[in-house]
């Protein structure tokens, strides 16, 4: 009795696992040849090979439809994620203090301090310039370093130095060379607008502590003048006075001057010590201590970097 039961159990387990001796009266289906297309195989869904065929079927289905379904699922999920995030942020925005109200928590005693004492503490009429180039000057130094680092890395990626000659499979992007003498309108306009743009850039940089503007915006204006010159007169003409070597020397010198002068002023002028650099009278060009030279440094770095970006992306060389 016990033995019989055991035998039956064993048989049953073997039947379930599918690795024991087969019962004599079982009908063994003919296994389809493996290279037969799926649609022509006999229907053996209920046979011992049920599991294997289901897996095969699933894999085949995945090969045909998997990418499509994945892309649909991916776009649906990403749209859902974005909608959820936007809804959460909108719910947060609805709870924020009203726009433009003077009693908002953002307008606290820090702002009062900057506005009321910024004028005679930094000597700058433009409070934002005093903020970013005096109170938070090391922050701006970091920004300039970030810009310089980005320009250096783009130069390493795209520049045609000796170390950078990796064999590429595809031909390089080529912009068709055009005859510059065919563009009299561009040259005519550039001949009188380049000096004007250069002068505007210099004014914005030098008046950075008096009017809106400063090193970053003025540098961007200066770089547009360089780009216009490169377009109108050919990049060879610009290359004569601004090449890779000039850019690296100019930017690193400006950064060094920035770091040394600002570090010196922090050591001597901060922490309630009296600064030896005179503040001047608010509103004059020669006022605000170090803000004017720092603005000029930042303007040089930004102008060089933006022209470098343009030149590298346009013709892959500086």
């Amino acid at each position, binding site marked *: 009795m016990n033995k019989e039961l055991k035998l039956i159990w064993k048989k049953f387990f073997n039947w379930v696992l599918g690795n024991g001796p087969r019962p004599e009266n079982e009908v063994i289906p003919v296994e389809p040849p493996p290279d037969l297309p799926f649609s022509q195989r006999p229907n053996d869904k209920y046979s011992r090979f049920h599991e294997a065929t289901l897996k095969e079927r699933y894999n085949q289905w995945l090969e045909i439809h998997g990418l499509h379904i994945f892309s649909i699922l991916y776009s649906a999920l990403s*749209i859902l994620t*974005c909608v959820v995030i936007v809804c959460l942020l909108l719910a947060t*925005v609805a709870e924020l203090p009203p726009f*433009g*109200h*003077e009693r908002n928590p*953002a307008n606290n005693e820090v702002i009062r301090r900057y506005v009321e004492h910024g004028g005679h503490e930094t000597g700058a*009429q433009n409070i934002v310039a005093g903020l970013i180039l005096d109170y938070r000057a090391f922050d701006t130094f970091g920004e300039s370093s970030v810009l310089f680092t980005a320009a250096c890395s783009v130069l390493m990626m795209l520049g045609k130095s000796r170390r950078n000659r990796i064999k590429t499979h595809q031909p390089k992007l080529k912009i068709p060379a055009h005859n510059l003498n065919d563009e009299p309108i561009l040259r005519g306009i550039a001949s009188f607008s380049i000096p004007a743009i250069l002068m505007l850039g210099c004014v914005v940089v030098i008046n950075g502590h008096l*009017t809106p503007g400063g090193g970053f915006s003025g540098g961007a204006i200066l770089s547009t003048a360089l780009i216009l010159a490169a377009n109108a007169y050919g990049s060879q003409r610009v290359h004569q006075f601004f090449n890779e070597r000039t850019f690296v020397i100019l930017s690193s010198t400006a950064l060094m001057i920035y770091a040394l002068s600002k570090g010196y002023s922090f050591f001597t002028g901060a922490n309630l010590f009296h600064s030896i650099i005179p503040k001047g009278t608010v509103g004059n060009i020669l006022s605000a201590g170090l803000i004017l030279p720092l603005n000029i440094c930042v303007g040089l770095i930004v102008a060089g970097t*933006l022209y470098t970006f343009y030149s590298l992306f346009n013709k892959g060389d500086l």
Partner: protein
Amino acid sequence: MLSKLFLNHYEAVAVILFGIGMTNLLLQRNLIKKIIGLNIMDTAVYLFLAAKGYVAGREAPILIEDGAGGWLTSSALYVNPVPAGLVLTGIVVSVSVTAFSLSLALKLYENYGTLNIDEALLKMTEEQVELETRIEQAEEDVLGD
């Protein structure tokens, strides 16, 4: 909630712009369009910061002369100067990141001839498989000798 959103419409628009940029970043297959999406997100953050710093009826934070040789330094006259500095930092970092990622995209195009990220990945895996088979072949040759 809608009335509160209309009260804060600049911030609401900034948040929606952020969502548009993020959807662009996730859904576009073209790398240049992905970078454009990143820039839209940056712009949304600048708009949010600038809106937070605004105070109705006040001037830009540049000192005004009081007519007697001095300067008006009352904080009730000027808007918040801190967001301007923060936005400046953001713009510089965004320019750097954009330039670097564009140069990476250009290198990818030079190597694989496509800006579509799926095609580039496919070509990368094909290249990897080819390299592995070649390495195996070389190892077999060396061992056979």
